[in-house]
């Protein structure tokens, strides 16, 4: 795998993890805000 592809994969993973964390945070906030 070229270095460029590796950097691309890493960037894609970081984007996805960031979005996933955002989803989980919103989900938990909605519930615990009303607890």
């Amino acid at each position, binding site marked *: 795998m070229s270095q460029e592809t590796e950097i*691309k994969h890493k*960037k*894609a993973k970081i*984007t*996805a993890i960031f*979005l*996933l964390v*955002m*989803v*989980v945070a*919103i*989900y*938990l*906030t*909605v*519930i615990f805000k*009303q607890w």
Partner: protein
Amino acid sequence: MAAVHGDAHGHEHDDHHPSGIMRWVKTTNHKDIGTMYLWFSFTMFMVGGFLAMGIRAELYQPGIQILEPELFNQFTTLHGLIMVFGAIMPAFVGFANWQVPMMIGAPDMAFARMNNWSFWLLPVAATMLIGSFFVPGGAAAGGWTFYPPLSTQGGLGVDLMIFSVHVLGASSIMGSINIITTILNMRAPGMTLMKMPMFVWTWLITAYLLVLVMPVLAGVVTMLLTDRHFGTSFFNAAGGGDPVLFQHIFWFFGHPEVYIMILPAFGIVSEIIPTFSRKPLFGYSSMVYATASIAILSCVVWAHHMFTAGMPAVGQLFFMYATMLIAVPTAVKVFNWTATMWRGSMTFETPMLFSIGFIFLFVIGGFSGVICAIVPIDIQVQDTYYVIAHFHYVLVSGALFALFAGVYYWIPKWTGHMYSETLGKWHFWLSMFFFNMTFFVQHFLGLAGMPRRVPDYNLQFADFNMISSLGAFGFGLTQLLFLYLVIDCIRKGEKASQMPWDGATTLEWTHLPSPAPYHTFETPPVIK
């Protein structure tokens, strides 16, 4: 669209693909998954349509004819849920799967295995939802918005609905994360954000909306579930909770959801109108900003669905004016589409007819939306057929017509065959006629006070209801013509050239043969 040069045919080799049923079960190819999404959504459209026919058959004349009130309520509830979550949303995801990688010059979606998983969750959820008709007590019957206390009191059908909404939400979240990651990281060299086709832009913004609001829906149905089974009282007034809280949280998801269903439709129409006007899209950057503005505003207008639920006057005023404000970026879009057509060399093939039909009828739906946003009027028309007419003008002649336009536009690229233009035009004109016959008269019914979700009505509403039901049966039959047309196109259609539409400028037309090979853009094109 920017000019393109460089290795245009990186897809030429390696066009083999697995065959048999396992090709579809295990596929990670964006085109296969897109195809499955589209067929799944059409199947759900038929199921939801069957329920609609049942509803309209019952309402054909006053009195109880064929559906007991309880079953009628289940039909209206499941019709809404299936059409929103099973038909319209997956259809747009199908378009995103097929088109986004090809339009940005990417070989596939960023997370191909997750893409497979996103799709295969759908049949599971749909089976639970449709299967809920056959459990003791029947399906959920409290409306597609499943407000408590009805939804906290229902039987097993409500639990199945809650699970299926959870699963559908998980599928949507995975799909949207995939789309955002693909668009942000896998564009061909030289394709900056402001050079992306409008369809890709609208999907990028839609995917962000999904990531923002789907967890909110998941949260509210989780709370519903714990209220039903684990002794919490989020929405139970007797336990210190508040049923109106549910409405606030639901509509914080629900209103952006409307735009999730319409923004990709704007994207499709924004591709088709320039092609058949043979002119670049007028005001590209203003289209992008208008789409983003609509998305942002859609998150601060939710309580206009709740004007009669009890709200301070200042709240009513805020939500009324904020809602009206959405008309501004929407008008920018309508102006730009019209300006694109202005003095263009227009031709009126079926995709263009559906796009113009979309603009014409969506504007009617938009205007009745502004009317509903006005508090004193909304208090009169709340829960009447006026609201039914309004949102069907937005979702049927809006989202669905744009989907039809998109299928006719891209089917030569997907299948390598042309559809029958004569049958396509018949499909358009019959849909146009029967759609208006079904829903235009519902404005009058609503203004006269006919309530929604009730299987019987006063004699004064009989004539318009008969017209509406006849129109609905015609509209339903017309969609069978569409099914025939698509199958006929796949099996016997005339061979399509690489660029059947001479005004098209996006990568899938300029760079790929028809049908698009199984693997495309393994070597990305370079965009100047």
